[in-house]
């Protein structure tokens, strides 16, 4: 690193001397950051870069469970007619934050679970969508942007670290991060999704930039050619990241560029959500359309489908998924939510994944060579075929045990944090230790790979969530 720094320094000095005009370009040139630790798990069934139309989603759902830590209070009842952008419920903890209908139509059902917890609000969609209209002028103030985003239902798209929850509108973030690529297995390609949406993306950036006095970091994949929507974006600091998953996780990028300390906040937005925000500030209406990838080994038409936030899985799965015992996931195989065949797309998900569900016990499976299986360790043989695409099922491949192996998480965890020790501090509820060990910098998704490779099959993501929630509630 030192060497490359001196090289760059020498280079800039030469340029200043002989070509002062070029100098400006050189210093604003994007930085490239390399991540070494991590792992790309190659799976069968990545989505082909073709746009396809699924069936129209006749029903859509808003799931309060997508939003960690909120206490939903309904604003509508079954049978009410709503427009796209009509508030459906709000957060009792933070009343400004509204959750709105992605489509126009009728509230078909409010599904409740134990203790009357709202599980899903299901809306029957009109074929022609009517929108709530908002007055959006040009050159808005920061407060006005915030106010519009809160009332129009865009706010939940802005999330924060620490705690990995919806951004607290009362706080001032030290920066805003947008990861322009997803490095997880079978992830959607945002360069493809955002192609041709430069104007809306830029409008979104302009709005978001008003929410912070710090920088807006736009982080692109240094290994591929990023779309013009990203490379031509103005008002951002463009950073290149190279390396294996989780390089695309915003937490990893924050850790590299502006590491979080206790008391600081950073906000982050998904690039496709930036487009939605941009469209709103152009047209004054909440256009919830979203392009989602359909991927996985059990998919027959792995492509990109135009649909809406909260779309029914059936509208995408029909005719596109193999028969049989499948696991349907809203999101990716590492962090996604398990849904039923008739479930719905999560608010923060930009893909559906379908992999086989397999309950078959394996005779002496712990000593068989198991050539078809993937492992990060060399105790199996998958490391011999680094480019092979695997068809993996949802099996645990072993039973839960106490911690035995060490050093395993570190291989796939690109943070200057001791993952195993942090997990242990959460397990024993030691708040001071959690803080010291850096819990504010991580989110469950950052531990997803650790969870995959864990020999002891421990539930790390839910453990991290438990710790974060404990600290978040303490901090209120």
């Amino acid at each position, binding site marked *: 690193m030192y060497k490359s720094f001196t090289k760059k320094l020498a280079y800039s000095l030469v340029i200043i001397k002989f070509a002062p005009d070029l100098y400006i370009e050189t210093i604003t040139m994007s930085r490239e950051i390399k991540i070494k630790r991590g792992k790309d798990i190659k799976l069968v069934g990545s989505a082909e870069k073709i746009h396809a139309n699924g069936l129209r989603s006749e029903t859509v759902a808003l799931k309060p469970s997508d939003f960690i830590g909120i206490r939903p209070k309904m604003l509508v009842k079954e049978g009410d007619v709503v427009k796209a952008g009509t508030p459906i419920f709000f957060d009792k903890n933070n009343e400004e934050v509204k959750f709105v209908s992605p489509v126009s139509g009728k509230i078909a059902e409010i599904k409740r679970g134990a203790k009357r917890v709202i599980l899903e609000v299901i809306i029957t969609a009109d074929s022609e969508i009517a929108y709530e209209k908002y007055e959006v002028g040009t050159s808005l103030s920061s407060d006005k942007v915030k106010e519009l985003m809160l009332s129009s239902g865009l706010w939940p798209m802005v999330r924060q670290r620490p705690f990995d929850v919806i951004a607290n509108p009362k706080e001032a973030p030290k920066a805003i991060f947008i990861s322009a690529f997803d490095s997880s297995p079978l992830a959607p390609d945002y360069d493809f999704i955002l192609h041709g949406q430069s104007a809306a993306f830029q409008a979104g950036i302009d709005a978001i930039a008003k929410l912070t006095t710090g920088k807006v970091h736009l982080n692109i994949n240094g290994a591929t050619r990023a779309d013009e929507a990203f490379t031509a974006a103005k008002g951002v600091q463009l950073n290149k990241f190279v390396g294996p998953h989780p390089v695309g996780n915003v937490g990893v990028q924050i850790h590299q560029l502006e*590491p979080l300390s206790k008391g600081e906040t950073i906000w982050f937005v998904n690039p496709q959500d930036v487009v939605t925000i941009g469209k709103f500030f152009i047209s004054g209406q909440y256009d919830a359309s979203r392009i989602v990838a359909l991927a996985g080994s059990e998919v027959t038409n792995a492509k990109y489908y135009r649909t809406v936030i909260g779309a029914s899985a059936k509208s995408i799965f029909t005719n596109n998924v193999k028969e049989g015992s499948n*696991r349907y996931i809203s999101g990716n*195989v*590492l962090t996604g939510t398990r849904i039923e065949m008739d479930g719905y797309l999560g608010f923060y998900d930009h893909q559906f994944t379908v992999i086989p569900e397999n309950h078959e016990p394996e005779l*002496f499976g712990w000593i068989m060579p198991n050539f078809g299986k993937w492992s990060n360790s060399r105790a199996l043989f998958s490391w011999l075929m680094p480019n092979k695409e695997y068809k993996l099922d949802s099996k645990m491949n072993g039973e839960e045990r106490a911690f035995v*192996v*060490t050093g395993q998480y570190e291989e796939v965890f690109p943070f200057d944090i001791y993952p195993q020790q942090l997990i242990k501090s959460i397990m024993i509820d030691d708040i001071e230790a959690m803080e010291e*060990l850096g819990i504010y910098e991580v989110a469950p998704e950052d531990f997803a790979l650790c969870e995959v490779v864990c020999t002891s099959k421990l539930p790390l993501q839910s453990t991290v969530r438990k710790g974060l929630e404990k600290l978040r509630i303490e901090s209120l």
Partner: protein
Amino acid sequence: MNIFRKLLDSVKPNFEKGGKLEKFYPAYDAFETFLFVPGHTANTGAHIRDAIDLKRTMITVVIAMIPALLFGIWNTGYQHFLALGQPDTAFMDMIAFGAMKVLPIVIVSYAVGLGVEFVFGIINGHSINEGFLVTGMLIPLCLPVGIPLWMVAVATLFAVVIGKEVFGGTGMNILNVALTARAFLFFAYPTLMSGDKVWIDTTTAAGETLADGYTGATLLAQSTESATNYVNAAGVQFTDVFSAAFMGTIPGSIGETSVLAILIGAAILIYTGIGSWRIMLSGVIGGLVMSLIFNAFAVNPFMEVPAINQLVFGGFAFGIVFMATDPVTAAQTTRGKWIYGFLIGIFAIMIRVFNPAYPEGVMLAILFMNVMAPLIDHYVIRGNVSKRLKRVKVAA
């Protein structure tokens, strides 16, 4: 496959809730999961999981120990016939003799250890852990062949109960379980764990013990007298003591003599990533450094032993490869592993040379460092924490 499945399914109702043998479910579970990796799927978190589990990890370590075991079996026979003055005995006879002596120790160790695991599993209602698969093999390999079987049983019982189960089972112990067993025997029955008589089985065919005329002393014991004059069981001087110790055709604990066999195991452990190469490498470096320091002063014959010989004598290689790398009792942080391994190397040679009453310095060094490992990790992690705190102060 169906036979096993049918058998399991037919007895399963007895062990399930409400069944006659409900309490013994952990025992049933152990057998079932031994036969079949269960088909349960991920419920929370990531939907795909690595194919590795603790059973495979442990069995890989056991596989890595097999060369040392096989060599130990042959060497037991070889040393026996050498002492009897029949070095030309057929290879298979040596193997047969060795197997007769060694396998009972292995069986006793496994039977007692797994028995304890089952009992604790049933009492506590937790599933039976795989940890003992490795311990059960380590215990026989670090014992002299002349050990009475009842002592193997007592030591295993002590080590598994006091060394592991009282702390909560696999993954919770502070001391390496196999070394706890060995240390127990070493201090409880010193005459049977050291000296000249225990390393070679010298019972003749007629059932009498060979009186004198051979030396059963290990090279380590011999080096306290002289750094150059080593003799084998037949009383013949070694021309190349390093090769003899490297190949392992010398008296010693069952699995520790052949550095070559141990290196095969080390290769398997490092290659699969299951044993920490950092601990092994830093342990060897530590041993070399300490030996070289002693060589530089060399006020007694033991200090004159060439550094390279120190590494192949006694249990040094075996301890560093198979025992220091036990992930539960070793340091857990990367930097901690370097320090931990290095200090094991240093202390092993130091104890060995300064206190000839404890020629097996490596055992005590590892146990000592097992106790110190959490302290090393503590300071390594403190370093990381203070880096983070500093950032807050800079920002503030």
